[in-house]
């Protein structure tokens, strides 16, 4: 799965997510990605989220909207993302990850899987990583 969250110069937020699903899936299986609130959510008043990981678990927990609700309740983007993914993993014993932007441009990146590739641009630098507690930096 791949995803992107952006805020433009007018302060508008958009989110996109795309996937081939899971290897060996049944013909006709639908995961979290096209289900708004599970794989994708955006609200200019709060922020935006794109998820990846075990689709059936993500959709049962409506992970993208859960993160938005946490932020709407006052959590910062990083805390909200961490809480929602940890709750899903604890409850359903499967892994996932998410990227989040708050309406003010704060970043959230968290994954309970072994790895998740991510990157963002801020102040003409690219911050990126794939392993836990890893943040690499390069010029844009």
């Amino acid at each position: 799965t791949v995803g992107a969250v952006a805020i433009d110069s007018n302060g508008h937020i958009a989110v996109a997510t795309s996937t081939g699903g899971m290897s060996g899936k049944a013909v006709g299986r639908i995961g979290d990605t096209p289900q708004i609130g599970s794989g994708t959510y955006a609200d200019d008043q709060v922020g935006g989220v794109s998820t990846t990981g075990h689709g059936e678990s993500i959709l049962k927990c409506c992970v993208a909207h859960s993160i938005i609700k946490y932020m709407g309740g006052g959590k910062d983007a990083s805390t909200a993302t961490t809480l929602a993914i940890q709750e899903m993993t604890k409850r359903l014993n499967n892994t996932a990850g998410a990227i989040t932007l708050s309406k003010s441009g704060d970043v959230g990146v968290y994954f309970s899987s072994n790895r998740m590739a991510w990157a963002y641009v801020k102040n003409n630098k690219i911050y990126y990583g794939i392993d836990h507690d890893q943040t690499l930096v390069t010029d844009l």
Partner: protein
Amino acid sequence: MQPIIIVHGGAGDIPESRINGKLEGVKEAVRVGYKILSSGGSALDSVEAAVVSMENDEYFNAGYGSVLNVRGEVEMEASIMCGKNLDVGAVTLIRDFKHPISIAHKVLTDSPHSLLGGEGAKIFALDKGFETVPPESLISENAKHALESSKNEFGRTEIGVKGDVG
């Protein structure tokens, strides 16, 4: 407002051999998306372009390089959402198109609906000028190998428990 874009390239048990390709791919995707933002473009166009970049890259499970279903076929899905007015567009069970995210964007802008699937999504895409590609052109060697592996470990995540697949 200072524009910002963040992308992900998928979570899971990514092998060492795929790390460099994944990292190069996500860096390219944010460059593509940020170029649109920095020239005054919209967040919607930016996220679509970033995802299109990764749909073109066999290191990612989307577009070309998508994993295969039990019959060895590519069936994809995508969604896009606009935070300004909560407009959404999504497609599912889509085959034979290179960029599901672009079709989803068209559902958002050119349809009264939110989610189109299967044959209906194909009819909509063709009506909007999207062209089909040969099914095999979306299949990568890595996806074929992943399907073989999945026959023994379907639904497994790193925790090691069989996934409850709906």
